[in-house]
């Protein structure tokens, strides 16, 4: 069966490339590049979370950053309190998943759809942002962790080898961990999507009513997808808090949510490799373009270093011109090229002059 062989070959290629990257990158690049690569890996995990929820589940979540931020804050608060990272790590996944499940129950069992889903997820994100942002005073603390309001939480202790608080991960260790977790997430999702559950999720996306009439409860499948997405975003948040040893409320910001959506749009919905490539490309672009603030000198270079402007233009451009995203569009194009080449006697060439 050729389709199946193709799928397996694709999986093998990703696995080979991923492993090679995991093992070789630290030997080839400088430490600061490795630091950049690590954040690409983390953001790719975050992109995968929305890639699942939106691309496969058909649930447009405008607030994926909420789960990302929740994961980061959970890790920070738990780590400051506990000092050993096993439980904080697990909490940083479980808490956003639980929150997503709660929110999902509220939305899906209330039969809220489309635009309203967007409104609610966006609003929840803003509530989190506002609330956390205003907890600057010393009276706001959880255990011994001060929330710090708009100042954020600094000096978050890094992850350690389970059971050994003194064996903290260094920068290289963070790279290995993030890359390994990205690969694990990718292959885990591939397996999930190939399972009965994953196929029903896609069925619900394609035609919710039909899935229902076949005996599947769409609410349950959406809820589960949303919660899994929340867990993955939480995992990314945990790694992100580790990476910078710092977390602040901007992680809940609209700009963060917009970025995640842009990654998925650019890479392509309905694929997993697309969001990964999209996030890496866009992260690379924003880093290259420079910081989010302009220097105010007013030159053309200033315009280019203006990340919102460039990202905004990219989002508009993709929605209008490449609505399916790069990976599906390119895959289709390649497929068409192959098909044109394979049957030896090609169909009559198109007339050179139309009309």
């Amino acid at each position: 069966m050729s389709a199946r062989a193709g799928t397996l070959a694709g999986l093998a290629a990703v696995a080979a490339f991923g492993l090679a990257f995991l093992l070789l990158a630290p030997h080839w690049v400088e430490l600061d590049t490795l630091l950049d690569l690590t954040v690409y890996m983390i953001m790719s995990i975050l992109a995968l979370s929305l890639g699942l929820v939106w691309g496969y589940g058909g649930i447009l979540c405008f607030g994926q950053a909420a789960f990302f931020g929740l994961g980061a804050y959970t890790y920070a608060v738990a780590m400051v309190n506990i000092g050993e990272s096993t439980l904080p790590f697990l909490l940083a996944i479980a808490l956003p998943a639980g929150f997503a499940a709660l929110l999902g129950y509220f939305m899906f069992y209330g039969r809220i759809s489309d635009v309203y889903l967007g409104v609610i997820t966006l609003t929840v994100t803003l509530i989190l942002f506002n609330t956390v942002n205003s907890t600057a005073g010393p009276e706001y603390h959880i255990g011994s962790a001060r929330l710090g309001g708009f100042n954020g939480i600094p000096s978050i202790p890094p992850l350690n080898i389970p059971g050994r608080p003194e064996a903290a991960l260094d920068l290289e260790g963070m790279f290995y961990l993030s890359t390994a977790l990205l690969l694990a997430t990718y292959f885990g999702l591939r397996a999930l999507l190939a399972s009965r559950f994953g196929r029903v999720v896609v069925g619900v996306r394609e035609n919710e009513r039909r899935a229902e009439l076949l005996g599947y409860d769409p609410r349950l499948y959406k809820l589960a997808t949303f919660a899994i997405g929340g867990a993955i975003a939480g995992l990314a948040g945990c790694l992100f808090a580790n990476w910078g040893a710092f977390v602040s409320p901007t992680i809940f910001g609209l700009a963060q949510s917009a970025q995640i959506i842009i990654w998925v749009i650019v890479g392509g919905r309905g694929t997993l490799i697309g969001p990964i490539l999209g996030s890496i490309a866009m992260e690379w672009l924003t880093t290259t373009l420079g910081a989010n603030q302009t220097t105010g000198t007013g030159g053309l270079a200033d315009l280019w270093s203006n990340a919102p402007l460039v990202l905004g233009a990219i989002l508009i451009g993709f929605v209008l011109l490449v609505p399916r995203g790069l990976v599906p569009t390119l895959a289709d194009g390649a497929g068409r090229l192959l098909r044109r080449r394979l049957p030896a006697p090609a169909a009559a060439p198109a007339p050179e002059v139309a009309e």
Partner: protein
Amino acid sequence: MDLAVVLAIQVLYAIASLALISLGLAIVFGMMRVINLAHGEFLMLGGYAAIVGTHLGFGLWVSMLVLAPAAVGLIGVVVERTIIRFLYGRMIDTMLATWGLSLFLIGLTTFVFGNTTVGISAPFGALAIGRYRTSAYTLFVIAVATAVLGGVYVVLRHTRLGLIARGTMQNANMAAALGVNPPRVYAVTFGVGAALSGLAGGVLAPVSGVFPTIGVAYIAKAFITVIGGGAAIVTGTVSAASLFGTINQLATFATTPVFGEVALLGAAIVLIRLLPQGITGRFFRRGL
């Protein structure tokens, strides 16, 4: 007693400003089923237009009440012609594209005006109510909101323009058969919505100051007011603004402004869950 009056004025102001920032979005959503996520930036541009106007030597009133709506209305028409019109019927894509536009406009204004807050001082000064003082400009904002809402209602209800607009929104093909040009109606409607946003941005500029990312503070509130209100433009905006404004102001009064806003957002979520079609989807169905 004095405190009650001040509180009442504050509540009215909260309702009025909410209605004012939502109306432009409500028109575009109610008539065209388009959610414009760059709406907050239209408000922001209205603020800048007012400020630039005063710098150019136009009076404050002209800048705020004429220049701001005119400039943003024009921008609205351009946006409709270059982006929105390709996406009719694709609600989600429209939201995404206008979100992109929102980022783009934030970037552009940062580039032009810098990332600082500029302000114009509010006219009228303060107003004493017993032992309390409140800004007289507050009353002005309430008056403007009332006038604008009344104006939109009258136009929709009693003019040929309003009739054409309502007809096109009900059934574009039917309107086309009657000799109306739907693309032009859409462009005009979007432009009018943008102009009202510009007006709101201009009128609120003295209160809040203007900076490139101020739209972010507006958009969520406007968004939930419109969705919470439902399809009827005026009745929906007024009822949702009244509900949310009251909750916001009372919660602010009881705690802090931040938690007032959180209460507002929380109330909106509950409302959308209970009434997915918005207030006017359930009540006041014949409203406009």
